[in-house]
């Protein structure tokens, strides 16, 4: 591990200044991803600015929505009564991620910014454009079971591993960022990047940008929402494919629908084409299948993950069918 200094920030402004003023500095949340990467040699910050004890650990009611502090633990967020009542999709997504021990430590911001689980990214002996820009992509032509089928590039085919972020993408969450130039609010759909020719950048955040909160908007339809995750074992495993779904019915017709996919792309994938195909139409299994196909028309599976196309279709249809049945 590279030697580093450790600083516990007293307030958000101090944390931003400390990181912004030093190119090698990084924020530390719960550490369940960053500390792991420092041991593996994937990350080597020379200063860790601990933001996990900043007073950003509250879940507050806003006009119909919730404001979740960046330091709220994943386990506390999943257990929060208002989250369970208003956004069951988020509670379920959180509980499907990692283990109890890890959720007790992992923070909201750290979860959003956790890095890919691509095995080559974590193995410093192999080429990886995300870890060392320009070194090549070992996954292309290699092991691709957990890799992308949508929106990838010839430079990187990694997926974003967070379950929580998929639910937040379906809910149109807004990420509050404090940077050296002040505060700004970023819709979650604009936070993440596709790999393109710069896979080393997961998000649009700049060095020194601190996430202080995530705002969940007023969305009554989300009371009927679900998270469905397919994985290689029943618990404690990353998603092969997952879906976060919100379904609002008007009789047998779809009034509104929100769909986001996990495990299939470099970012939580909002399935806008599928949503468009469904809005105003019938809530039938056939319609769900056609909507999933509309989204998956752009899929470019790799040798080794072709199964994900049919799996994604199946998971989308099953999640929507269950929600439609609940609503009848």
């Amino acid at each position, binding site marked *: 591990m590279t*030697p*580093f200094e450790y600083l516990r920030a007293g307030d958000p402004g101090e944390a931003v200044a400390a990181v912004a003023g030093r190119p090698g500095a990084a924020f530390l949340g719960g550490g*369940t991803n960053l500390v792991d990467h420092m041991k593996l040699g994937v990350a080597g910050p020379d200063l860790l600015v601990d933001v996990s004890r900043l007073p950003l650990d509250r879940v507050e009611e806003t006009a119909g929505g919730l404001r979740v502090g960046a330091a709220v633990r994943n386990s506390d967020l999943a257990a929060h009564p208002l989250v369970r009542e208003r956004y069951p999709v988020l509670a379920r997504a959180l509980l499907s991620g990692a283990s*109890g*021990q*890890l959720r*007790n430590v992992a923070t909201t911001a750290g979860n959003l910014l956790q890095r890919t689980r691509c095995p080559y990214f974590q193995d410093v002996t192999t080429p990886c454009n995300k870890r060392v820009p320009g070194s090549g992509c070992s996954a292309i032509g290699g092991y691709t079971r957990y890799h992308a089928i949508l929106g990838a590039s010839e430079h990187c085919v990694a997926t974003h591993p967070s379950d929580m972020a998929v639910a937040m993408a379906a809910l149109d969450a807004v990420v509050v960022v404090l940077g050296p130039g002040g505060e700004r609010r970023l819709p979650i759909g604009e936070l993440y990047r596709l790999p393109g020719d710069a896979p080393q950048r997961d998000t649009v955040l700049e060095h020194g940008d601190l996430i202080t909160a995530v705002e969940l908007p007023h969305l009554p339809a989300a009371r009927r929402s679900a998270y469905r995750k397919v994985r290689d074992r*029943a618990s404690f495993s990353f998603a092969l494919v997952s879906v976060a779904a919100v379904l609002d019915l008007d009789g047998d017709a779809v009034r509104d629908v929100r769909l986001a996919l996990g495990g299939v792309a470099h970012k939580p994938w909002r399935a806008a084409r599928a949503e468009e195909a469904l809005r105003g139409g019938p809530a039938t299994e056939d319609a769900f299948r056609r909507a999933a196909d509309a989204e998956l028309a752009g899929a470019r599976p790799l040798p080794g993950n072709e199964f994900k196309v049919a799996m994604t279709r199946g998971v989308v249809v099953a999640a929507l069918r269950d929600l439609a049945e609940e609503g009848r």
Partner: protein
Amino acid sequence: MRVGFTVNGREETADDVWEGESLLYVLRERMGLPGSKNACEQGECGSCTVLLDGVPVCSCLVAAGQAEGRRVRTVEGLAEGDRQAPIQEAFVECGAVQCGFCTPGLLVQAHDLIERVPRPSDADIREALAGNLCRCTGYEKILAAVRLAANRRAENP
């Protein structure tokens, strides 16, 4: 740096701690508490589980500085005086231990479950222990031990 926190009810400090040491390392190598085990160092196996401010965490991924001023309880602190904790007795009675490497983490995690959930279902137990891997027992006897300890606790709260 100097790191100080409460371990099993006692104030402890360690000097000359390197920033890169984990809480697990500090407990084992500096505070003489080798109960918590170091197996994967990646959050995958749970053998390093300790209670941090009352909730179970993987101490291998907690940087030493993060523990400053907090409360830690390790497997060494589960027993009350000479008497083993109910979960420890149940593990012995059910033969839930083979090589024993996973056992301290499982004890801490299972202890937390039966303190929080009065009558855990098998599904509750499996989910609660999902982050603890055992390479020897096949888990059946571990499940039996947790059921036994939970039942005893429900009968004599």
